[in-house]
């Protein structure tokens, strides 16, 4: 069933409306609120449906970047991959692991490659980000862009990795962030190289400098 129908809202509902719909319905169907209710079993089923619908909508709306899930962070696998000296093959292997969200294994493959090309930094950035190493991820993505400034894929990755910060700055203005935009010049340095390609990347931060 369509998750929006479960919550009784339209697909254009705002995030807040989705949250409110979830609250209303989850209160109504919550197992604790229906002890002794003849429909209890049915309501409990409904409660689970509401939870799943909410999660589906939010995951879809806020995709973020691939991230490991709880309980899966330190899956240090020795992995079966044997580097044969063919870099192209190793990159394909790493990409496969990234696709399957097996970031540590992706890094294990990448670490066997000696010659670190821009491609290496690109894949390593995604894998590190997935492992929660977001400082290193941005550094690597930046390195990939520096090595090959015209590569759209690298630029998009860097932009994506920095996306949360842009969103955060916008929202924090409503809450009187004491820092304001004072540090934007530093930020500009990172964004500068992107501005040539994606004007939206800077999103008005130029104004204050």
């Amino acid at each position, binding site marked *: 069933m369509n998750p929006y129908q479960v919550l009784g809202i339209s697909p254009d509902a705002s995030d807040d409306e989705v949250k409110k719909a979830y*609250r209303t319905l989850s209160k109504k169907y919550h197992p604790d609120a229906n002890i002794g209710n003849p429909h209890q079993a049915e309501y409990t089923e409904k409660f689970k449906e509401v939870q799943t619908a909410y999660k589906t909508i939010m995951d879809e709306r806020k995709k973020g970047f691939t991230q490991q899930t709880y309980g899966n962070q330190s899956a240090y696998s020795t992995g079966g991959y044997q580097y044969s000296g063919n870099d192209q093959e190793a990159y394909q292997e790493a990409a496969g692991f990234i696709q399957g969200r097996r970031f540590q294994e992706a890094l294990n493959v990448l670490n066997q490659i000696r010659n670190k090309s821009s491609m290496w930094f690109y894949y390593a950035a995604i894998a590190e980000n997935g492992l929660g190493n977001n400082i290193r991820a941005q550094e690597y993505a930046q390195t990939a862009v520096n090595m090959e400034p015209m590569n759209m894929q690298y630029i998009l990755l860097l932009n994506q990795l920095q996306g*949360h910060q842009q969103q955060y700055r916008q929202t924090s203005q409503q809450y009187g962030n004491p820092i304001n935009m004072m540090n934007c010049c530093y930020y500009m340095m990172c964004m500068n190289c992107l501005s040539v390609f994606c004007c939206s990347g800077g999103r008005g931060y130029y104004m204050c400098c």
Partner: protein
Amino acid sequence: MFGYVVVNKPELKIKDYEKYQQYYCGLCQSLKKTHGKKSQFTLNNDLTFVGILLTGLYEPKETIKKIRCPLHPIHPKLVRSNNYLDYASDITIILTYYKLDDDIQDENSLKSKVFKSILDKEFQRVKNKYPDKVARILKQLNEITHLEKQNNDDLDLISGCFGRVMGEIMIYQDDIFKDDLYNMGFYLGKFIYLIDAFEDIEEDIKKNNYNLLKNKFKNDDFQDYCYNILEMMISKSSFYFEKLPIIENADILKNIIYSGIWTKFELIKKKRLEEKR
């Protein structure tokens, strides 16, 4: 490690500030009720935040009552209590105990030894109450101690350990929100570890203590660099926060995440500027 996750008071509505106070005092009362009067010194803003967050997410039945407190003898205080604040008080014991242990190892401080011995019994009790959770938390905390001894300065690696501690703390129960809670806590934990290092850097250099930012400190752009990585962390944390269906307490929580969290950073910046003059 404590005192960074605070509200930005001037930007908070009065009713929200009062509510925040009721939670803060509520955590204090919960410490007293479950761990005894002697444990109340462990009260802190950071775990108050965790209590308010979980309360906002699960909307439990709360009781509000008036109490008289020796610290505020004239005006009676309203305090809130619910099982999430009780949970936060249990976690407070664990983290404070570790912090005191850390201080003893760093400075061999007598004061810390005394406080730690006060908490001994309560620490064991909480450990027995959530054996698996506490074991996972302690594993990460011990890993930090180990990496610090090795003088490791890999920012992601070490702050990530404290990230996993906070991630673990944020998960109250096994449900569909646990991944988002974990990730929110993970990046908040990284933020806390890093800003703690940012605050202590000069003193750590002076005393020849470990600090993972030592190598960065000589750079001209040290402060901007730190700001950028801190923002990297809190922005990711806020991303996962926004996925949670929180309406109740949302204004307080957003005030903290989007603004209050920088209060300490600003203070440190100001202090450094004045010292330079």
